């Protein structure tokens, strides 16, 4: 009786049952909610927004404290004037999602730094850019080898502006995280344990106030090689 099942067997069976369950469901077209329900949901969202405002205030407070500690230790170490601006990050882990929050000590006189241009100078042979996107304070590019979508490599970077953040998440527990450095910058490598799932490398250049990440399906050494090849092309 106690043979029971391996996790892999149960994962596979559960996935098949889920597919069958969803096949038997319609989308709910034609359903309507009453005005009373809409009012309840609006109240729920308003309460949540209030809670989030409190959380953001707390986060800013924590961020300010972190920046203060960093600025203080810099003065002690270098025995020079406090730096004009310092960016750093701290993280929160909630379930399988890691949030990296950025904090910055900024002087009133500081002008907003423009996003410089970085690219990986190494990408495996046969790869072409298939998508490129500038989104204000972030830039991302996806490379792919021919039509094979499983070959895709994504590179993204952006400004570690105060109060912004990034997150790395997974639907499953099937990964582990390793501390790494990329060209002297601290980073974290998320190694997926499931075939067909991507690895993610995220690292932070605190001096330049930039975060970077590379994600791909292929082996982590190749991902690290791409990361280490990232160079500045133009300083805006």
């Amino acid at each position, binding site marked *: *009786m106690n*043979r*029971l099942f391996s996790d892999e*067997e*149960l*994962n*596979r*069976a*559960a996935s*098949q*049952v*889920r*597919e*069958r*369950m*969803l*096949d*038997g*469901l*319609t*989308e*709910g*077209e034609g*359903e309507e*909610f*009453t005005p*009373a*329900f809409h009012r*309840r*949901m609006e109240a*729920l*969202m308003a309460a*949540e*927004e209030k809670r*989030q405002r409190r959380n953001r205030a707390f986060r800013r407070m924590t961020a300010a404290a972190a920046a203060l500690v960093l600025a203080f230790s810099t003065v002690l170490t270098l025995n020079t004037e406090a730096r004009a601006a310092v960016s750093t990050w701290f993280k929160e882990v909630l*379930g*399988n*999602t890691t*949030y990296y929050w950025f904090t910055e000590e900024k002087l009133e006189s500081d002008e907003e730094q423009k996003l410089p241009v970085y690219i990986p100078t190494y990408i495996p042979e046969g790869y072409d850019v298939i998508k490129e996107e500038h*989104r204000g304070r*972030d830039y991302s590019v996806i490379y792919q080898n021919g039509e094979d979508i499983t070959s895709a490599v994504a590179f*993204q970077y*952006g400004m570690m502006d105060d109060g*912004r953040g*990034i*997150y*790395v*998440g997974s*639907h*499953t*527990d*099937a*990964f582990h995280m390793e501390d790494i450095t990329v060209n002297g910058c601290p980073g974290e490598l998320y190694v*997926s344990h499931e075939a067909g*799932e*991507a690895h*993610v490398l*995220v690292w932070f250049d605190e001096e330049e106030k930039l975060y970077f990440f590379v*994600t791909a*399906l292929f082996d982590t050494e190749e991902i690290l090689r791409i990361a280490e090849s990232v160079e500045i092309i133009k300083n805006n």
Partner: protein
Amino acid sequence: MLIYLSTIEVPDDREKFEWLYQQYRYLMLHVAKKLLGQQQDAEDAVHQAFVAILQNLEKFFPYDSPKQRSLIVIIVKRKAIDLLRKRKRDNWGPLDEAVLALPAPETGDHALADAMARLPASYREVLLMRYDNGLTAREIGKLLGITESGVRKTIARAKRALQAELEKEGIVL
């Protein structure tokens, strides 16, 4: 790709929740109405389900996927059954989940999946949350409003029921 990265622009959570609300509310109402019949009752179940989603927002993502869709269907079903259970307790007596209107998944040609599909909904769904959605007992408990130890017991019972189901069919894996 299951592992992903995205930038967060405050207020991210509000946007995520609104996305989930817009995306799944009618499906949720449909599921709840099948179980409860009445519009008002079904709306109560959907509301309870959204409260649970909001309290566990980190487990959800602002894009549609079969796993997330299934998780949301299970949550609203369990909230609807909680309501039914409460009303039965208040008025008529115990609830027989077997008579609930939502059909069990069809069986196919995979022995373990077939046996899982035949399990009572309360067993089947907690197995889906654990093994398809990858949630821990604690996370399942938070979403369904039950204790972690209660979830562990249900998972253990569900596995035993699965084993018995296979043995009944004379199947050895």
